[in-house]
């Protein structure tokens, strides 16, 4: 195997160009290096002007999502040797405005997330002295998968509905809503219902399933969305047959 590999990296400097351009760099091809290590090598040794986000370099912070050879990936969890002999094309995540180089603006998600109330909603709060809310392992299993989301935005990058529909609240937001809907300590199903069952909520999803395919943490947001469609539909039937006012 060669000991160098070419990275073709998207550059976008709004003060210089109207569109992204590609720039090639040659980096060492070390067997233990991830794409992120390649980018760090570029930044440290070749071109300090390259801008990109990263933090934990171990797949838990969700910062380093980028498009690698057309696929949304966490660059800290994707290895250079998987793309040998290269070249490897690195671009920012699609479906988000590009601020600079590989950095995208995720304000849209940050605004949408609180609308689904991703926190425990309770009618009554026990006083702290009474101790923790207890939960069995089975109750934990109900929502645990959806709690693994690291907000890395790979699912939004993969979702064609999010690409086409600016208002769609998106896979991660709905999966996180479900994480709380299915938590035995939560009583907020009604509170989240209006946002989730709007046209920009679950009904915009056409179950392409790419969100779940690219998710690095196995959250399966597509499954979470379909389950909520069934929940909302059942509730709509019940509301039709037994109007809430009368109960």
């Amino acid at each position, binding site marked *: 195997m060669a000991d160098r590999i070419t990275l073709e990296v998207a550059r976008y400097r*709004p*003060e210089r160009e*109207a569109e992204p351009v590609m720039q090639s760099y040659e980096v060492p091809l070390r067997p233990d290096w991830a794409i992120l290590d390649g980018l760090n090598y570029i930044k440290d040794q070749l071109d300090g002007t390259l801008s990109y986000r990263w933090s934990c370099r171990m797949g838990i912070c969700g910062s380093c999502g980028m498009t690698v050879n057309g696929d949304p990936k966490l660059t800290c969890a994707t290895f250079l040797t998987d793309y040998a002999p290269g070249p490897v094309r690195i671009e920012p995540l699609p479906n988000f405005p*590009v601020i600079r180089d590989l950095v995208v603006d995720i304000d849209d998600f940050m605004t949408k997330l609180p609308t689904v109330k991703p926190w425990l909603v309770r009618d009554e709060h026990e006083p702290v002295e009474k101790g923790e809310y207890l939960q069995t392992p089975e109750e934990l299993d109900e929502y645990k998968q959806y709690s693994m989301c690291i907000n890395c935005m790979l699912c939004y990058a993969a979702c*064609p509905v999010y690409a086409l529909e600016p208002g769609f609240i998106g896979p991660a937001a709905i999966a996180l809503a479900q994480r709380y809907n299915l938590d035995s300590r939560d009583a907020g199903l009604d509170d989240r219902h209006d946002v989730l069952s709007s046209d920009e909520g679950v009904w915009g999803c056409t179950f*392409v*399933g*790419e969100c779940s395919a690219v998710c690095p943490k196995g959250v399966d947001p597509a499954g979470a969305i*379909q*389950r909520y469609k069934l929940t909302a539909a059942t509730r709509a039937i019940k509301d039709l047959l037994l109007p809430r006012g009368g109960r």
Partner: protein
Amino acid sequence: MIETTGPYHRPISLFWWTRRRAYLVFVLRELSSVFVAWFVVYLLMLVSATSSGGDSYQRFQDWSGQVWVLALNIVSFLFILLHMVTWFGLAPKAMVVKLRARRVPPRAVLAGHYALCVLLSAIVAWLVLR
């Protein structure tokens, strides 16, 4: 103050669905609904022809053997198979079935769909062919 063009918004091509294999399969899957609708029309034509007498039934048989009708139905069959395979594959994700407080494994939900399909297909075949 530097002149700047601001954040870059990549335009979405009309052919976005050709860019990834998964998107192409998705669009084909969605288009299968057109062939479902066609077959409803074909079924109703068959029922109408059958109930209008032996001659019209025979005419329907001849018409159904015409190249373009046959081709359309063969294509429809392939698309409906695609619909069946993708539908059964996705059903376990949407349906979380609990049996005595334990979640039924997704493979069992999948197998259940196929088993039901085989059973119902056998019943239809028996009804028609006996």
